[in-house]
């Protein structure tokens, strides 16, 4: 299968101010307005350019490893009983998550724009590693902003980025996590835009970021659709599921199925420790309309408009706002949102590991958790498509900590095989945190 990123697709565009209905927009300090306008123009010109598309698709195929397989998860399907479950294996990409689709696209764009320096934010590593990788490949300087708290939790990813030649800049402001890393990246960019491109890692931020990041990831959905036609006999699943931090992997998958009433699109947010404000990152149940990081969208905030802390076992979902297009599509009835708690995600992590031999990223494990709730109630001829957005190697330590804190044994799969999969049910509450970036 040839790699074709549908960059020039005309559908799904916001208006020229970057608005999806009342969401999105370009709420940025004046200094950045002209650079953002320049970025919009450069992106619109390049995405239609054949040579740019060819270069990107070539790298995606030979360097990144696209197309990723679509895999029929027979073990998980049998275990749950009900719908047939297909996994879109973004976890098999170079650097271990879907993030590289966007990072490579933007760094390539930056190079075409004549920029010599790249900056990025990262929650705990995946977007930072992907951006550092693309910068190393294309020979650009790279600085990745990362909260001190996340650096402590993810020492290995910090070293990975350093090995790739990037400077990892510690952010000691605020909660010292992803939100603060984004603040710091914007502060850098206000002073450096002349030679620097800011590679924002998810489908939020001021125009053109939401549509640009979505489009670089739309290859996920377009591939899945073609693969599903071959494997399942229909291009359209009954349900498509993806986790939603900022929402980039979800938007990448869903973009191929928008406007198709027979496909139910389900986004899964981080339910964290519970429904109290501050204990989760479920914007659709606990958020209100606000303006953060350049976009008007749902934000977890207090009544005075101060952004509140969030919690998730997966740092990639641990972010107080969500991509504006998600909110728009939710209003339109095109995407349904639900959440999975830390504990459900950890259970999903163990379940996929035991039934399929695949360690999912804790972010993606939230999507698996939703599948375990949904699949048993569906018919055997129905299809669930899941975006397995990243692999879980980075999270092994977090899972170990979580399990230790909740006093659970590591589950053992009996060698006699068959259907004797033991999936343990952790019972304790836990305040640990994992790894990743806004998905």
């Amino acid at each position, binding site marked *: 299968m040839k790699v074709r990123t549908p960059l020039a697709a005309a559908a799904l565009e916001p208006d020229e101010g970057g608005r999806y209905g009342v969401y999105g927009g370009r709420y940025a300090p004046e200094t950045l307005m002209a650079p953002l306008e320049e970025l919009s123009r450069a992106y619109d010109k390049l995405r239609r350019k054949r040579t740019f598309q060819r270069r990107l698709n070539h790298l995606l195929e030979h360097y990144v490893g696209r197309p990723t397989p679509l895999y029929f998860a027979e073990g998980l399907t049998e275990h749950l009983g009900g719908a047939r479950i297909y996994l879109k294996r973004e976890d098999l990409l170079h650097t271990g998550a879907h993030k590289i689709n966007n990072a490579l696209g933007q760094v390539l764009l930056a190079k075409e724009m004549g920029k010599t320096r790249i900056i990025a934010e990262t929650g705990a590593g995946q977007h930072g590693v992907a951006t550092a990788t693309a910068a190393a490949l294309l020979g650009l300087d790279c600085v990745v902003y990362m909260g001190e708290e996340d650096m402590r939790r993810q020492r290995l990813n910090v070293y990975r980025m350093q090995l790739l030649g990037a400077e990892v800049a510690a952010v000691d402001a605020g909660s010292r996590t992803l939100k603060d890393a984004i603040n710091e990246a914007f*502060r850098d960019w206000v002073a450096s835009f002349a030679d620097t491109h800011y590679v924002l890692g998810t489908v939020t931020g001021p125009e053109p970021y939401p549509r640009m990041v979505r489009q670089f990831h739309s290859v996920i959905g377009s591939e899945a659709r073609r693969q599903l036609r071959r494997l399942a006999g229909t291009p359209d699943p009954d349900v498509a599921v993806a986790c939603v931090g900022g929402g980039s992997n979800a938007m990448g998958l869903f973009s191929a199925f928008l406007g198709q009433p027979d496909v139910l699109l389900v986004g899964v947010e981080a339910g964290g420790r519970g429904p109290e404000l501050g204990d989760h990152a479920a914007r659709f149940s606990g958020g209100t309309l606000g303006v953060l990081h350049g976009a008007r969208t749902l934000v977890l905030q207090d009544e005075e408009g101060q952004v509140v802390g969030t919690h998730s076992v997966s740092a990639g979902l641990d972010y107080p706002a969500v991509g504006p297009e998600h909110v728009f599509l939710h209003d339109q009835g095109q995407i349904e949102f639900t959440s999975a708690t830390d504990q459900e995600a950890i259970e999903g992590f163990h379940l996929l590991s035991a039934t399929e031999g695949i360690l999912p990223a804790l972010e993606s494990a939230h999507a698996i958790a939703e599948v375990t709730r949904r699949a048993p109630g569906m018919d055997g001829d129905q299809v669930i498509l899941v975006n397995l957005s990243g692999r879980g190697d980075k999270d092994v330590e977090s899972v170990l900590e979580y399990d230790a804190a909740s006093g659970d044994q590591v589950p053992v799969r009996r060698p006699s095989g068959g259907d004797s999969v033991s999936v343990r049910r952790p019972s304790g509450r836990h305040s640990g945190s994992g790894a990743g970036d806004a998905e």
Partner: protein
Amino acid sequence: MSRRRKRSSRDGAIAAAFKTCAKERRSAFVPFLVAGDPSLEATPDLLRALVSGGADVIELGVAFSDPIADGPTIQRASHRALAAGSSLSAVLGIVERHREELGVPIVLFTYYNPVHARGVENFAAQAADSGVDGVLCVDLPPDEGLRELQPALEERGVDSIYLIAATSTRERIDRAAAASNGFVYYTARSDVTGEREDLIPTLAREVKRVRRRVRLPVAVGFGISTPEQVEEVAQVAHGVVVGSSLVRLVEENSAEADLAARLERRVRDLTAPLGARVL
């Protein structure tokens, strides 16, 4: 672009302040502080110190949890203010109680989200009732502000002030100028807020470029912290904004009993060079 006439009879306090300065042939001094730093109780005294030190217009900062346009000094101040219980409600309360007594126009300097959370109509009504003279939202460029916030403010006679930057194209300068009332705020450098040793060498030329296209007074801020810098900027600007260095003084002296007196002395030092200015 909206050209509606303002209805309030109270309007124009900012314009009047700049006019007075022009008559006195000097630039206006526009100090900035974060409201609620180090405490809500201390803020009125500090505002009085600004006025007695020579402030012509006050920029009163509303702390926000995610100040992406601010450097470390104002970030820390915002953090302290929030920890001390500051909020947009609290700031409006301070203005309501002290605006008249202070006798100089007050511009709320804020990020858009606290305003948005309150609802723009509510905010505009409360700001006007409290005696707020103008509002500047750092992350609300005219592109968004003209549609969202400005009509409500204009309706109630509260000025909208927009930023102009070195990166602003002619079209953007014209848009900000047409949208602003009272004055426009030119950011002296493409950077976050904070003290700097030197002004950028092209500043005078840049400010003149803006002044040629703008009918309103042009105040210049970002990176201005010493009397020498104030004097230099005053050569070309109708107003000089000083923020971080005053905020740092508050930070370093917050435990001192004579904090307000120290602030007043500092403001006097900064406004001294403005006396002889012939604009």
